[in-house]
């Protein structure tokens, strides 16, 4: 396996080797997205995430996210990871087809060209939207949202409700990210107390 660690991971505000997050007293954030207008099309994912400048340090999930390149598509074409988590790009074509992976947005890196059966590992050190492309095949694209902390929920399907468990107590900023951006993203303050659930309504307006 050809491995390329292409991004530095030293300066993420909360990503570190020690794990104060694990030992912090925790609460829960429960909420509902309230949309100002109907969403007539397919329900696209909305990520609700928490961040703050002095967030406890945490170790990113040990399991990497694998994104396959198969039939000239990224599979999955959308995923959410935590900053510092590894992503494995796996050229899983059954024929001898080269793919290139490059990213724009919160990460802007060319991860090289690799043939069928080869893999490339990336680490995304900055939170935000990362758009995936292949410079060979024009229909290949995808998106990753890199959450700044492990405190996030993905709202999709018919329900607009969400729960974020295991949130270290303290004052947080709640923000949203939409895979298909239709509304202005929301931002609101949430106080989380240990052993309790904070309830919020997140207004998504146009």
């Amino acid at each position, binding site marked *: 396996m050809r491995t390329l660690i292409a991004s530095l991971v030293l300066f993420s505000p909360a990503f570190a080797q020690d794990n104060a997050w694990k030992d912090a007293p925790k609460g829960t954030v429960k909420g509902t997205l309230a949309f100002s207008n109907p969403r007539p099309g*397919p329900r696209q994912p909305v990520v609700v995430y928490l961040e703050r400048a002095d967030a406890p340090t945490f170790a990113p999930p040990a399991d990497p996210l694998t994104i396959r390149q198969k*039939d000239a598509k990224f599979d999955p074409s959308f995923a959410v990871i935590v900053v510092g988590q590894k992503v494995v790009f796996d050229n899983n074509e059954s024929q001898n087809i080269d793919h290139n992976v490059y*990213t*724009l947005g919160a990460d*802007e890196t060319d991860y090289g060209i690799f043939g069928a059966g080869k893999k490339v590992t990336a680490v995304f050190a900055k939170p935000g939207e990362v758009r995936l492309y292949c*410079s060979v095949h*024009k229909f290949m694209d995808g998106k990753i949202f890199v959450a700044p902390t492990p405190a996030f929920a993905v709202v999709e399907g018919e329900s607009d409700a969400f729960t974020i468990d295991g949130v270290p107590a303290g004052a947080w900023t709640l923000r949203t990210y939409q895979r298909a*951006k239709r509304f*202005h993203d929301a931002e609101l303050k949430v106080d989380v107390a240990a052993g309790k659930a904070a309830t919020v309504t997140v207004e998504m307006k146009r």
Partner: protein
Amino acid sequence: MRRAAALAALLAAGCSGPPDVPPPPPGTGQLLVHVVARPRDGVSAPASTSSGYGRSAPAPGAQFERVDYGSMKDIAVWLAGATLPPDGPAPRTERLRVGKLLDRDLVLLAAGRTRLEIANERASAVTVFCAGERDGFELDIPPGQTREAALREPGRYELLCDQDPSLRATIVVAPSAWTATVRSGGWAVFDALPPGSYTLTVAAPRLPPWDRTVTVAADRRETVEATATVGLLAGPKRRP
């Protein structure tokens, strides 16, 4: 502005060589930008292009179609700077057609100056939308009709369609009226510029933006080569 409009028309033609333009008016400068989209090193050009560089859902079996950088169109070029006159050569209207495919990958608007007309050429209604942090629109367009939108907040927007999520286009709102849209190999001409330093930006569909500071002197013509390519990214090839 008539002169500027005439010169701006040159860039739409996508001249293969440097355009034959008159010198700038006395006391002003002129900027010629040659824009080329290139494949990444190690990626060859496709043997043939079946559908140009359109962004849409591939036909069954066509998902392996390769990017043809040589025929890339809709490459956005714009200038920004405090001394730019507000009445630059931005077009008044840009048009996007929603047929089986979208006819453009990228639409360049000048903030508050360029209207966007979206024509629905399908047999059924479509809803198209986009949103930024402070701006956006959602349009329900009956079949055969056209609706108009405007965006004032500079930035990058993704235009999406409810009825066909594979239809996507990028809308770039430039912070000035000094804009041009060219094909790969084409030239953008910015005429009658006040002497000064400006930020020149080139944004091609799917490719990383290219930008550079350019200095324009009175009674001079500056020529700039701008290459849009994945090779601008860090990684195997570093940003120059």
